[in-house]
């Protein structure tokens, strides 16, 4: 630092003598180029590829059977209704009250006693990422010595979020590579061995990146054990409705925990289930003992949000509250989200069928056992590189395939490629 300062300082004194002279050295010399984001970097590489056969099964954004992005009809209709409205004034720091109300009903249940009793401190957040980050900052501020337990594996950005919020991470076992399923006993052991009162990050449904979810019975046992240990359960729910096609069913884990009396934290996102990716709309909620505490918690979340972005963007929030607040539009949404989920489920079946028909020596039932947008294929990084380099198929190096990127037009090609890179495994 001293060396840099004096060097540029000397140059500065020389150059300031000549009016308008350019600086020779930069303040930013020590700033290194950041590594490419592992997930979003895949799409960048895909876009740059000229091959006509290229397939993007990298980022988790839904595509229709023609490989096109989809804007839901209910969303388009909502936009028509809100067009021309005078709604550009700042939202409150906590965001759209209506959107938050609807979000809580969706997650906690239409007639939830917790909503009636006003026990939930909740704010609009910048999609799932923003909700997690706000919670991580809140955790850091009020439990500065705590850590977060995250499953292995988890969405890559979870690491970045809690790290940048200053909260150290620990892991718990989750994925079982041998069965391509859940390592349930490992998971339970790690929950038991964590010190009482630890913070646990749980994926409510459609685990990202593996697609492996606990069964209902397993969720009940997880809930019991977490309760005995006095752990804090924080749910990241990015796929409600998108996993099974039924939002109520996808919220089952959360409802189990609520029945059990847990005071949960919850991040919700509308990026996938309403196709509002770029609008950045979600919700962070914390279930409290009583209304007074909920008000206090909400006020503190707002205190954290203000120096991050002051108040959240309105457009996506208006869409969500318009859709969920109107019975007709909400019904349309439920139909559309089921269509998306069904297409994914169909693609899983087709991919597995194709691989089995090709005579693959490996087991592929995990493709249909897993749920949601992603499939943890079991491909190794080297095999993934071959998929990309030889077949122009883009995916993340952990072997995660975004099923939404598959369609009737390319599923055969992708199955063939997977078979090619794995047949001698």
């Amino acid at each position: 630092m001293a060396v840099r300062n004096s060097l540029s300082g000397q140059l500065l004194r020389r150059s300031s003598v000549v009016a308008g002279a350019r600086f020779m050295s930069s303040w930013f010399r020590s700033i290194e180029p950041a590594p490419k984001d592992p997930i979003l970097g895949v799409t960048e590489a895909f876009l740059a590829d000229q091959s006509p056969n290229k397939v993007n099964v990298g980022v988790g954004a839904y595509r229709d059977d023609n490989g096109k992005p989809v804007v839901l009809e209910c969303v388009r209709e909502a936009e028509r209704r809100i067009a021309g409205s005078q709604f550009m004034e700042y939202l409150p720091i906590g965001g759209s009250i209506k959107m938050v109300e609807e979000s809580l009903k969706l997650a906690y249940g239409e007639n939830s006693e917790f909503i009636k009793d006003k026990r939930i401190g909740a704010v609009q957040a910048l999609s799932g990422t923003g909700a997690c980050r706000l919670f991580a900052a809140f955790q850091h501020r009020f439990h500065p010595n705590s850590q977060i337990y995250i499953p292995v594996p988890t969405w890559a950005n979870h690491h970045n979020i809690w790290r940048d919020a200053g909260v150290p991470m620990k892991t718990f076992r989750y994925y079982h590579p041998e069965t391509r399923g859940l390592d349930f006993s490992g998971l339970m052991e790690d929950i038991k061995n964590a010190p009482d009162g630890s913070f646990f990050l749980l994926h409510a449904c459609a685990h990202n990146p593996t697609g492996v979810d606990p069964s209902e019975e397993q969720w009940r046992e997880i809930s019991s054990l977490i309760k005995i240990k006095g752990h804090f359960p924080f749910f990241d729910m990015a796929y409600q409705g998108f996993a099974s096609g039924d939002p109520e069913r996808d919220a089952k884990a959360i409802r189990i925990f609520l029945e059990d009396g847990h005071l949960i934290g919850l991040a919700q996102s509308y990026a996938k289930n309403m196709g509002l990716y770029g609008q950045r709309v979600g919700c962070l909620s914390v279930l409290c003992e009583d209304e007074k505490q909920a008000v206090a918690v909400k006020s503190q979340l707002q205190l954290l949000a203000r120096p991050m972005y002051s108040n959240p963007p309105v457009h996506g929030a208006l869409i969500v509250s318009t859709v969920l607040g109107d019975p007709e539009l909400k019904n349309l949404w439920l139909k559309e989200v089921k269509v998306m989920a069904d297409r994914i489920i169909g693609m899983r079946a087709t991919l597995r069928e194709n691989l089995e028909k090709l005579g693959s020596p490996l087991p592929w039932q995990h493709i249909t056992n897993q749920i949601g947008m992603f499939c943890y294929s079991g491909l190794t990084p080297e095999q993934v590189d071959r998929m990309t380099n030889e077949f122009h198929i883009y995916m993340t190096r952990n072997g995660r395939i975004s099923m939404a990127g598959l369609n009737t037009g390319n599923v055969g090609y992708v199955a063939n490629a997977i078979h090619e890179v794995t047949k001698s495994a």
Partner: protein
Amino acid sequence: MASAVLSIATQCVSPNASSLSINETHKGKAKLGGSTLRFSKSSGRISMTVAVNVSRFEGIPMAPPDPILGVSEAFRADTNDVKLNLGVGAYRTEELQPYVLNVVKKAENLMLERGDNKEYLPIEGLAAFNKATAELLLGADNPAIKEQRVATVQGLSGTGSLRLGAALIERYFPGSKVLISAPTWGNHKNIFNDARVPWSEYRYYDPRTVGLDFEGMIEDIKAAPEGTFVLLHGCAHNPTGIDPTPEQWEKIADVIQQKNHIPFFDVAYQGFASGSLDEDAASVRLFVARGMEVLVAQSYSKNLGLYAERIGAMNVISSSSESATRVKSQLKRLARPMYSNPPVHGARIVANVVGTPVLFDEWKAEMEMMAGRIKNVRQKLYDSISSKDKSGKDWSFILKQIGMFSYTGLNKNQSDNMTNKWHVYMTKDGRISLAGLSLAKCEYLADAIIDSYHNVS
């Protein structure tokens, strides 16, 4: 499995619930120390669950209301007819209604017709927006842009862009301080605090003249250790409305260069202050023309009325394109764990307005209209106060100040009087938002100010 769960329960009972005495039974619930045992039947089994009554966030205190945004809340709660909201800086028409610019409506209609998709933007935001915003700030033919020395990342309006800049400072300039004006926008301190960047103040506002303490400002910037970041308001200083003159800007740039400081501009009112986009960017362009490396946060909340869309940008003008590339990559790395990628709607509106010549011209006209209304209101307020106040006090600062805000020179007690007696809502530092004032209300406001100034200490 049920029996296994119960046996674990008896082994690992938490210290709080160590006494297993049942105090009372209530509708199938039993109290167990601090927790409640609930007995429920599920699928034919009776299972015992312990409801978690003690929250992890038990001791969390209520946060104070935001000093700026809290004013609007208080205003809304006031039922008196004569109430006036001069708190938050959101533009109002003469009828005191919110104003959605016509160009914005047109741009949104275009977007609706085109049926644009809602896919994720890249982490750095909409490319068309980033290009437009840098050109708007620096001028399309600025050498810095031509030489690709400008790293631009779409941000969540001014706040989000400032926070990105603060995070960059914290990570890559550890130990470096930020110098902020006394006073400055309330949220600046929160942003640097939460980003863990130390700050101190440079003198700015002179209460004796209700103007700029230029000597003090220069002295304090000089006294700061080399390599300090100096936060400057590009135009229409918030909350005072007091801007340096062009000559003073030159001297400020001199001392910043001499001390090897890094200028960090907050540009929230480009076009809104004078009515001219270029004129309002003159300070930033001056620094860039000298070859200095500069950080600039921009916002489109006021000048395009896009408040709630949260659209702005963080720009870093660097000495080389290679350096700009590296800086941009690190800004992205800071943004990803904050919100992954920025909201698309506002970015598209800006890109459409700036990128469509006929809309761009219309925008400039609407901006002149808004800035013009503010100037008229300043004039009317000044005229009203001067004619009513016989004390000989010089109120001309009202005309000299520029932009949405005016520092009235009222202290906290006097500001409270404005609210409590006159139902005029403003911030405690004496700041009023002229955007919330109509010509029709100037007389009333004049009365309120004169009363508060003279009769309250």
